């Protein structure tokens, strides 16, 4: 009896501790999501050009939503979506190409420099993202920015024009390559650290075993290290891809040209002006897109986790 009462009392305490935070999240996180839907599928005041949210889902209308969807498939929003995927795709590839070797080196080969390198890799976490962008705004200034001058001196605009990422102009603002580089610069630290953690966690004995069984270093890397770091790569990829898809400030601050407009820019400008309805639809579309990404990632993670366990057993 006393024991049951005590358990109930204890459960009561834990429940009470959970309550405020949970209520907070419901009121300020769940409800806002619902409000987005209520605006996206709600009405519109033609005089004030303001949304009139419809809270009852049975009375939702999908006119604005259909308009936006149409515009994504074959309409004016199509280039924005394609561009966003292209930029994020290229930026992610670059993150991998730069990030993997760096993470690998720090985790496995850095020797006495390891601690120093680790500190250097953590530092960007504590520098405001916008300050890091500000640094590039200054360096790329067409009026004597150091990076701009250096890049133009080596003919970089022509180089990037081959890839269609620049129009060959010596003005770096407004070029796709600038936006993509900005994204890589901004998010790479967030790609490297989780990857580093996963590489660091790989059991050294597995690598030794591989060598003892006669594998060459290259083979060991290909057949042991690389497969074991796949979950880390995926984690790092999701961590960086998700915010990149919603990014708009990197783009605005480094470009501001309609030729580099991404989904985030459209959401930002629509939501806060007189078209919040369309902005809300876009928010829902983006969330749906990214939840898909999440689900895919989760499946892979769970599977690789299971496989790793089986392999160990």
């Amino acid at each position, binding site marked *: 009896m006393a024991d049951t009462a005590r358990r109930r009392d*204890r459960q009561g305490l834990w429940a009470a501790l959970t309550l405020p935070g949970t209520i907070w999240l419901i009121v*300020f996180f769940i409800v806002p999501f619902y409000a987005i839907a209520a*605006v996206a599928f709600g009405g519109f005041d033609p005089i004030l050009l303001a949304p009139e949210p419809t809270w009852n889902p049975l009375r939702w209308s999908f006119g604005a939503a259909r308009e936006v969807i149409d515009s994504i498939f074959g309409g004016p929003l199509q280039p924005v979506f394609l561009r966003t995927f292209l930029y994020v795709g290229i930026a992610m590839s670059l993150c991998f190409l730069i990030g993997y070797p*760096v993470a690998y080196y720090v985790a496995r080969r*850095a020797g006495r420099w390891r601690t120093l390198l680790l500190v250097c890799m953590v530092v960007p*976490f504590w520098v405001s*993202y916008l300050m890091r962008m500000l640094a590039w705004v200054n*360096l790329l200034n067409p*009026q004597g920015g150091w990076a701009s001058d250096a890049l133009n001196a080596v003919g970089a605009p022509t180089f990037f024009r081959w890839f269609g990422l620049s129009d060959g102009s010596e003005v770096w603002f407004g070029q796709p390559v600038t936006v993509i580089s900005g994204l890589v610069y901004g998010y790479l630290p967030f790609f490297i650290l989780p990857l580093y953690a996963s590489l660091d966690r790989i059991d050294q004995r597995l690598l030794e075993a591989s060598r003892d069984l006669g594998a060459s270093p290259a083979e060991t890397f290909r057949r042991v290290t690389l497969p074991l770091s796949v979950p880390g790569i995926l984690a790092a990829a999701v961590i960086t891809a998700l915010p990149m898809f919603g990014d708009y400030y990197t783009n605005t601050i480094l470009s501001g040209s309609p030729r580099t407009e991404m989904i985030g820019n459209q959401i930002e400008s629509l939501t806060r002006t007189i078209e919040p309805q369309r902005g809300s639809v876009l928010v829902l579309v983006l969330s749906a897109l990214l939840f898909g990404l999440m689900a895919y990632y989760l499946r892979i993670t769970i599977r690789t986790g299971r496989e790793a366990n089986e392999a160990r057993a």
Partner: protein
Amino acid sequence: MKDTVRPPWDRSRTLAVLTWAYVIWSLVPVVIAIAFSFNDGRSRSTWQGFSTRWWTGSEGSLLDSDDLRQAIINSLVLAIVTIVVATPLGVALAIGLSRWRSRAASGSNVVMLVPLVTPEIVLGASFFIVFTQLYTAVELGRPAQIVGHITFTLSFVVVIVRSRLASIGTTLQEAARDLGATPRQALRLVILPQLWPAIIASIVIVFATSIDDFVVSSFLSGPGSDTVPMRIYNQARGGATPALNAMASMMLFVTIGAIALALGALAVARKRSGGRAAAVEDFTGFSV
């Protein structure tokens, strides 16, 4: 020895060169930006000699500009209020979730994680909509910004504290109970003291996240509520002076100072609670 197994490209110094090039590329622009706050001219890209005129003592300098000073104050107030509310809320939620077994608990377990994987623009836009359409009592500006920041930093606190709770285990707490402590006493005397490192780490993370946030602050901004990142965003593109660099540098120094302070506190807390894990772990969530 870690040197025994090498990938194919490691025949030369390529890896080392690449890594150091990355480090330079990632840090040098920031150093240059700080340096230009000491430029003796209006330009943010052409060096015109050393001066502290953009920091203090001249018109438009950081300390003489109400706007820039106000942005720093706004950022700090926002971060501090967020810490004061989000930390206890998050610690309570973490303890509750890790001990309370019920359907509701697993539900809020899931809800709690979603903000972490929601892109900021989705958060910002939905906050904006809800504060303008539904919670109109919360004014856009500092009040809304505070609520927004608490909401998206809450999850960080929970995650950090929970991973600490998991590593602590329940043994001590059960021993306390066996010795006759009430759950409240166990909480106060056993759990909380062991949580200090995680709580300090949470505070630092919340502080840094809030200070750094641009999207949520910007969507929820009202009169006179510009924060430092918002100022940078709004002015970087136009004819801003090196005072903008000075403001950004100032915030960087404040952040670094806060972290140093927290590291000190953490060292003390660790000594008391006997933890031996590296500081980096609590700070970034990585086991190093």
